[in-house]
C-alpha cells in the first residue's frame, strides 16, 4: 500500500475516537472515518486513482484543494463531484468517471 491514514492511536494530534464509515467504490466497500473527504477515504485505503481520462490514463488527487478537477467522481449518481472537497457520508456510492462533460 502506498498512501495511508495515520492510525488514531499514533496520531500526535490525539483526535477523538474515529466514527467509522463505509462507502462503496465501484461496488467494493471502503472504510474511512467521519469527517474525511472522499479522496481522503480512498487514499487512506491505499487507492490512488479513481478516474480515467479521455485518453485512458488513470488520475486521482493532484491539487487537493478543489482547483484542478482531476479527482472528479460520481457520488450517489451525481457526476463531477470533486473528491478532495466532498465529505464522505456513510453509505455513499462512488463510481469511477471516464471524463467530464456534465459541467458548464
Amino acid at each position, binding site marked *: *500500500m*502506498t*498512501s*495511508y*491514514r*495515520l492510525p488514531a492511536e*499514533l*496520531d*500526535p*494530534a*490525539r*483526535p*477523538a475516537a*474515529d*466514527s467509522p464509515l463505509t462507502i462503496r467504490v465501484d461496488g467494493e466497500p471502503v472504510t474511512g*472515518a*467521519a*469527517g*474525511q*473527504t472522499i*479522496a*481522503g477515504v480512498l*487514499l*487512506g485505503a491505499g487507492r*490512488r*486513482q479513481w478516474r480515467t*481520462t*479521455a*485518453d485512458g*490514463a*488513470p*488520475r*486521482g*488527487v*493532484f*491539487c*487537493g*484543494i*478543489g*482547483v*484542478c*478537477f*482531476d479527482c*472528479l467522481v460520481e457520488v450517489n449518481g*451525481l457526476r*463531477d*463531484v*470533486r473528491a*478532495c*472537497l*466532498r*465529505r464522505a457520508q456513510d453509505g455513499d456510492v462512488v463510481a469511477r468517471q471516464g471524463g*467530464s462533460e*456534465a*459541467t*458548464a
Partner: protein
Amino acid sequence: MRNVVVVGAGPAGLAAARAAAVAGAQVTLLDAADGLGGQYWRHLPADRPAAREGVLHHRWATFGGLSDVLRAHPAVTVLPSAQVWSLERLDGGVRLNVLLGEPDGAGRSARTFEPDALVLATGAHDRTLPFPGWQLPGVCSAGAAQALAKGEWVAVGRRVVVAGAGPFLLPVAASLLRTGATVVGVHEAGRVGALARGWLSRPWELAGAAGKAGELAGYVRDLVRHSVPWRPGEAVVAAHGDGQVEAVTVARLDERWAPVAGTERVVEADAACVSHGFTPRLELAIAAGCALAPSRFVVVDDSQATSVPGVWAAGELTGIGGADAALAEGAVAGTAAAGGDTGAAAARRAVRARDRARGFAARIEAAHGVGGGWTGWLRDDTVVCRCEETTYGRVREVVELTGSHETRSVKLTSRAGLGPCQARMCGRTLQELLGDPTPSVDRRPLVVPVRLGDLAALRSAAPTPAAPRPGGDRT
C-alpha cells in the same frame, strides 16, 4: 451601519472580518470550505475534534482567538460552505452570487449579496510546472500533501520526494514526517546563490519578521532530526511508473533552472509532491475590475484598497507574503472597509506589521522565483494541460501551424486550458511557453463550474442575478 462582506476565511479574511466588526460594521464572512482557517489553518473537521490539533500548525492560538471572536460577535455572520460563483459589477457596487451547500452538490440554495464594502481574501493555490510523468497518480502538488496531512492525517505515500521551490516545501516535508511517511529528499530549485541573495541580504530587516523565521527554523529542525536531505539547485525532472509513480528522476539545475546534462539520478519513491510557488486566486478581483500589477497580483494602496471603489484586498491576492503579512493586511483592509480610521493606534500597528511582512514576498521571489530554463526538462510527449491532455509537442505544433503566440488562439486550436479547471493549472505555463504577456488567462467569469440545473433554478427563483453565460468566456 456599513455592510461588509469578506470572501475567504484564511488568515487575511479572518483578520479582516474581525477588524471590520471591531470598527462597527455588520460583517458577513463567506468561505467555500465547511470550516474556517483557509488552507493555512486547514484542520480536522468539527466532527472529529483533536486534543492537540495545534501540533501541525503555527499560531494555532491566533486562529482559535480569531474564530472564537467571530463566532461570538453579534455583528458577524459566518457562512461556511458558501461558494461565490460569480461577481457582477453594479452602478456603484458589486453583487456576489453564492451557492450554499455541499461542494458540487445539486440543489444548493442560492444567495446574493450587495455589500457596501467587499474585502477579497481569496488566497492562492500552488503552481506546479509540468514535467514528464507529472500526470501519474502519486504525483501531487505540495499543497495537496499538506491539505491531506493537516485535514485528515493522510499521507500521500510512504517514500515521498518533495520538490519545487520556496519555503512552503519545508512545512510540507514536516507534515509528511508527522504522518509517519519517509521523506526521501527535499529538492529546492533555487541555487545557493539565489537563496543567499534572497534571504541573507539586508538581514536587519528580518528581525521584524522573527515569527516567520522561527517557524521556518522549526521545520529545518524537523528535517535534520529525521535526516532528510535538503538539496538546493535540484529538481524532479521526470516521474516514472506503470499506472502510478514508482520512481522519479532528480537533476541538478543551473541558475536559470535548466537541468544540467549528466546529473540525472533515479530515486525510488511512491509519491512526489511538487510545487514551484503560488498563484493568486484572481477570479473575483478580475470580475470586480481590480487593477493588477505586471506580476499579476492585485494592486492595493496603503489601506489595502484596490483600484475599484468599495473593494479591498488582503493576503496572497496582493503578493505571496505568508500568514504574518496576510493577518496584518487583513486587519488593515477590514478596518478600512468598515470606514474605520487606519491612522488609529491599533490600525497603525497593523500597518507597520504589514510593511515588515511584505519584505518577505520580495525575498521569496528573489530566492525562489521560477527560472526560464525549466522548459529544458519538457519532452514533446509531456502533458502540459492535465485536463485536455495536450502535450508540449502539440502546443509547439500549433504555434508552428498557426504562427500565433497568442495564448487564447493557441488554446482554442490545441485545446490546452479549455478543460474543467479553466487553465488554473496550465494557464501561466502556456503564457510562459508562448511568451505571451497578455493577462487574459486569469479571466474566468464563472469562478467554479456550476451545474446547469442550479442555473435554471436561479433564473426561476431569484429575480436579481443577471443571466450568466453557462459556457463562460473560456479565454
